[in-house]
């Protein structure tokens, strides 16, 4: 019974994750986006801890800690700082208007669930149905990257995608082997660091973080 209770919590967190993904899709302001991202990280860490506790997979605690440290504390802090320094917290004009985006997003969710259905049924883990949600949040994050026309939201979309992946790893398979998780975390860290350097360069060169300045390399 306790297992089903945990399961319900994990499912709830999964739903929260999906909800946040949708919220991010519709969020116009960068600061709001960062906050949502931090909340997503929190939900992810929480679900990881619950899975770790319920299945006694101890390495998942490390994962959870890493997530918490990186995605809830370090990165949002770093992004807030960037936004302040670069002074780019203006309204984000998405490429496709938000209602349309949301409609596409709902279609994606249905698609993802359908895709995950046959797989989830053969899974040995208790949290199998979350795989569909993980896939859906990955696809939603992808969609967000497509619709945003500024550099920072695009990167946040990228990281949200990472979150979805992480969720898939923990919920569907009780986490990847530790070495891999560490490696992934390291990569993400380095990526964010590199991105930070990048933002400054972009800002320095283009006087703006708008991606429309970066459409010159093309076939004439």
């Amino acid at each position, binding site marked *: 019974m306790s297992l089903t209770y945990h399961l319900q919590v994990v499912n709830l967190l999964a739903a929260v994750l999906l909800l946040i993904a949708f919220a991010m899709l519709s969020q116009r302001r960068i600061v709001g986006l960062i906050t949502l991202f931090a909340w997503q990280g929190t939900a992810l860490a929480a679900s990881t801890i619950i899975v770790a506790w319920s299945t006694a997979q101890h390495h998942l605690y490390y994962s959870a800690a890493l997530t918490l440290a990186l995605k809830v504390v370090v990165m949002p802090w770093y992004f807030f700082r960037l936004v302040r320094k670069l002074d780019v917290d203006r309204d984000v004009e998405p490429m496709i208007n938000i209602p349309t985006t949301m409609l596409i997003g709902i279609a994606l969710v249905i698609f993802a669930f359908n895709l995950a259905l046959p797989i989830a049924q*053969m899974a040995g883990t208790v949290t199998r149905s979350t795989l569909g949600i993980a896939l859906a949040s990955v696809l939603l994050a992808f969609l967000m990257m497509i619709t945003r026309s500024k550099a920072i939201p695009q990167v946040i979309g990228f990281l949200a995608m990472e979150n979805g992946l992480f969720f898939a790893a923990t919920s569907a398979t009780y986490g990847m082997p530790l070495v891999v998780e560490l490696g992934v975390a390291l990569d993400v860290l380095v990526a964010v660091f590199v991105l930070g350097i990048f933002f400054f360069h972009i800002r320095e060169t283009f006087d703006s973080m708008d991606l429309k300045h970066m459409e010159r390399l093309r076939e004439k």
Partner: protein
Amino acid sequence: MEIYWLLGIPLAGGLYLALWGNRTHAPEINAAFSLATLIAAGTLTARIVDEGPMLAGGDGWFFIDAFNVFLVALTAFVAFTTALFSRPYMRIEQDHGRLSAARLRLYHASYQIFIGTMLLALTTNNMGILWVAMEGATLATVLLVSLYRTPAALEAAWKYFILCGVGIALALFGTILLYFAAEKVLGAGGGALLWTHLNGVKAQLEPVVLQLAFVFLLVGYGTKVGLVPLHNWLPDAHAEGPTPISAVLSGLLLNVALYAVMRSKVLVDGALGVHSLAGNLMMGFGLLSVVVAALLIKRQTDVKRMFAYSSIEHMGLITFAFGMGGPVASFAALLHMTLHSLTKSAIFFAVGHATQKAGTQVMDDIRGLIKTNPTIGWGLMLGTVAILGVPPFGVFASEFLIITNAMHQHPWATPFLLAALGVAFASMFGKVQPMVFGETGLPRLPHQPALAPVFIHLALVLMLGLFIPAYLADWYRQAASLLGG
């Protein structure tokens, strides 16, 4: 033991150059580390040739067989010659005022780390670590692509980062699915992602999951291979980065990404039965890449961009051949990987010096290379001829096998191949010929250009067209059989 040297040397080199890389002899140190890596790769290769495939480290963290050891050797070799080439090249760039000493330090450090991550990706036995290393290789090169800090370079690097990042993220999802399927058979824990273990049980893996996993892996790693329509970062990154980086990106990174796809394909084929989904998808992507790249070559005005498209074309051809499968086609694909690396990097070496001479990458402004600098001119000319698949250069050997095999097994694909090769030839040769021939007013270079690498590569390519040493052939054959041939 060699494996630790192999991975350790470049990482140490990266560290060293990052800390003390602003000295004047940094280029030489860079070359020396590359040489050491090459020696380590050589001893490792010799051992594999002697003793056959081996597992190394911990619970078999590293796995080396014929397939990856040949790529290891190739990577180490091209990395070394590129380091040799970059020595005078970067000096000239510095003289031209395009780079500062600090950036040169960044360049050298990243270069070593890039090589290290590629070698790690090749040697690791863990599909997860493979992913980590691939991502690492991307990260190591992002800042190299934007080294010149021009708007175009930044744009290229940004696109490179985002597109490859997203691609790689999808590959991670594929890896998770793979783990998901393997865990059922092998149980949770580290063993479930080891390729050797997976390979052992591949027939028992759930086909539905592997099918999905392969789609994610193919789209993910395929982005790095530069398969159309996932290729868009590639021409930008190749054209705007410094030429040595173009050479290694084109010559090495694409191979490593394709290596990852192939490792996945072997598992999927095992689960689904050979000649099924994976092969067909790869053939489709390969053919599309060949055709679109050939058409795009026609439109280029920038020389490096043009050769970048040519890389897409060749990676498409290799992917097509791998997709076809069978001992001959796989053999040809492996051979083509080798030859493409050698030839394309040689071309980029020659192109690098040519663009330095002309002060531009616009082909219309580069004329008559053969007159002021015959070696650059002939290097570019012969390299182009070689990459276009004209014998006796080796690229022809693999194209010969691929095309005849395609005619035999999948005749429907050949009209596309014929048309694409024709268009590619017309476009590329038509553009290179006036660069090499004719009159010119271009000045000479301030430093002696490093052309030994060009001709060493071309000589190797020539040799492989006429004579493939028995042990090399054996390698290829073993590797081809590993790939399900």
